[in-house]
C-alpha cells in the first residue's frame, strides 16, 4: 500500500512540485496519472522511490514512512520499487542480457557485481523476464541495435528481474509510435494482473489512460484534482483536469493493429 498524507514538495528554485497530496493506492491496483506536462505527475511518481524528496507530509510505502530513509534504507526501498522511463535508460553499448541483469544490482553484493559474478538463479530469472516480454531471442544483441519499442520491453524485463512489489512508469510510451505504445501498455497491464504488482503509470494520452487504467488520478499544478475509478471518468473530467477542451494531440489512437510480437 502506498499512502500520501499531506505531501508537498517545493523545489530549491521555489517551484511547487506537489501541494497537499492525499492519495492511497492499494496493492495490485493499476493507476494512471494524467495531467498536462508540468502538472506534477513526474514529481508524484519520483517521490515514491525518492528520486525526489518531498519537503512536507508523510509518504508511506508498505506501511513505513519513506521520507526518513537514509542511504541503506533508500536502496532497500528502491529494490522493491521498479521504474520504467520515457527514454528506456538502457546502457546502449551493453548487451540486452547485461542490461537486464543490472536489475539485480540492488540484490547483489558490490564486489560480486563489479566482477560480474551473478548467480545461476539471477541469470535464469533475467532470461525468464526477457521471455515474458518476448524479446529473449535478442538476448545477446547490443541495446542500441533495437527499436524503441524493443528497448522499452528490455527495460520492462529489467524491472521484472528486480522482482519489485511496485512498478512506476514515467511516460513510458511518449517516445513510441501508437501501435508500439499499446503493446508496451499491454505488457505492463498483463504483468500487473499476473504478478499482482501495484503499477503507477504517467500518461498524457486520454484514450490510453481510459483503456488500461483501473483508476485515474488527475493532477494540475501539483494538486490532485481528480481521483476515481475509470467508470466515473468522462470527457468532461479530462477537460476539468486539463483546464481546457480536449484536442487531438491528447489522444494516442491506433489501438488494435501494429507491431506484434517479433
Amino acid at each position, binding site marked *: 500500500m502506498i499512502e500520501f498524507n499531506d505531501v508537498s514538495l517545493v523545489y530549491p528554485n521555489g517551484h511547487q512540485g506537489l501541494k497537499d497530496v492525499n492519495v492511497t493506492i492499494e496493492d495490485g491496483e493499476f493507476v494512471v496519472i494524467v495531467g498536462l506536462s508540468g502538472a506534477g505527475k513526474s514529481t508524484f511518481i519520483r517521490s515514491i*522511490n525518492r*528520486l525526489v524528496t518531498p519537503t512536507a507530509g508523510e509518504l508511506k510505502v508498505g506501511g513505513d514512512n519513506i521520507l526518513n530513509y537514509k542511504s541503506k534504507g533508500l*536502496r*532497500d*526501498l*528502491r*529494490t522493491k*520499487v*521498479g*521504474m520504467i*522511463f520515457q*527514454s*528506456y*535508460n*538502457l*546502457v*546502449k*553499448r*551493453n548487451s540486452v542480457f*547485461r*542490461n537486464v541483469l*543490472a*536489475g539485480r*544490482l*540492488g*540484490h*547483489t553484493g*558490490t564486489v560480486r*557485481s*563489479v566482477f560480474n559474478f551473478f548467480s545461476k538463479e539471477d541469470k535464469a530469472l533475467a532470461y525468464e523476464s526477457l521471455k515474458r516480454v518476448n524479446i529473449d531471442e535478442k538476448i545477446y544483441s547490443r541495446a542500441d541495435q533495437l527499436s524503441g519499442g524493443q528497448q522499452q520491453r528490455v*527495460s520492462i524485463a*529489467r*524491472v521484472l528481474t*528486480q522482482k519489485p512489489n511496485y512498478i512506476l512508469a514515467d511516460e513510458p510510451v511518449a517516445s513510441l509510435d501508437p501501435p508500439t505504445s499499446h503493446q508496451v501498455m499491454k505488457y505492463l497491464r498483463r504483468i500487473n494482473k499476473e504478478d499482482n504488482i501495484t503499477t503507477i503509470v504517467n500518461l498524457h494520452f486520454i484514450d490510453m489512460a481510459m483503456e488500461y487504467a483501473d483508476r485515474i488520478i488527475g493532477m494540475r499544478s501539483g494538486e490532485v484534482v481528480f481521483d476515481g475509478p475509470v467508470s466515473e471518468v468522462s470527457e468532461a473530467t479530462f477537460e476539468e483536469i486539463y483546464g481546457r477542451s480536449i484536442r487531438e494531440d491528447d489522444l494516442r489512437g491506433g489501438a488494435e493493429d501494429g507491431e506484434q510480437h517479433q
Partner: protein
Amino acid sequence: MANNINKPSLNDDRYAPLLSPWRAKAKLSLVFFIILFFLWYSSRTTGVDFGDLIMGFTNMGQIIDKLFPINMDVLAPAFDRLIETIHMAIIASTFSTIIVIPVSLLAANNITHNWFVYNATRLIMNILRTIPDVVLAVIFVGIFGTGPIGGIVALFIFSLGILAKLISETVEAIDMQPIEAMRASGANTIQSIAYGVMPQVAPQFTSFALYVFEINIRASVVIGLVGAGGIGQLLMSQFSFNNYGAVMTIILVIFVVVVIIEYISTKIREAII
C-alpha cells in the same frame, strides 16, 4: 571539386569577408601591429632577430656536416637502452591508466557532486599538467637517485595529469539516463559506475591509454636526459662528450621507434573507435 553539386550563389555568406568594412580592417591591423611589437620585443630579449632565423633555416645543411657520418658502434647499447625506455613507458602508462580511474571520476561533475572534492581534484590535476616532464624527472631522480625508477614515477605523474583531463571530460559527456535507472533500482554508487559509466567510456579509455603510451615513449627520451634511465640518458652522455656521430645515431633510432609505435597505436585506435 567534382563532388560539390551545389551551385554557389552570390548571396552566399562566405562572400562577406571580401567586403570587409573599415572597422574589421582596423582590427586586423591592430592585431598585426601587436604581433609585430611582441616579435620586436622578443628579438631584443632573446638576442635573435627574424633575419637570423631565415639565415638559420638556410644553414640547415650544416647539420649534415656536424652530425654525420653517424657512428654505428653506439647502435648495440642504444638498443639496450631503447628497450629500457619502452619498459619504463609501459609500466608508467599501466599504473597511470589504473590510478586515473578513481581520479577522473572525482574530477567529473556528473559523478562527484561534492563541490570541494571536484574542484580540488581538478586543481591538482591542472597543476600537474603545467609541470614540464623534465622538471618532474629532475625531482624524482633527486628523490630516487639515477636509474629507471625516478623516470617511471615522473612519467606516471606526467601521464596521470594528461589522462585525468581527457577521461574526466569523457565521463562528463556520458549518457546519465542509465545511471538514473540503476539508482532507481537500488544499485549503489560503485555498482552504477561499474555498470553505467565504465561500459560507456571503455572505447575512449582504451584509446587514450594507447595515446598516453605514445606520449610516454617520447617523454621517456626527454626524461632520460636528466639521468632517469633509458635511451635519453645515453643520448645525453654522448652529447656532453661532443660525440655527435653517436648522437645522430641515437636520434635516428629514436625517430624510427617513435614512428613505428605511433603507426601501430594509431591503427589500434582506429580499430577501437
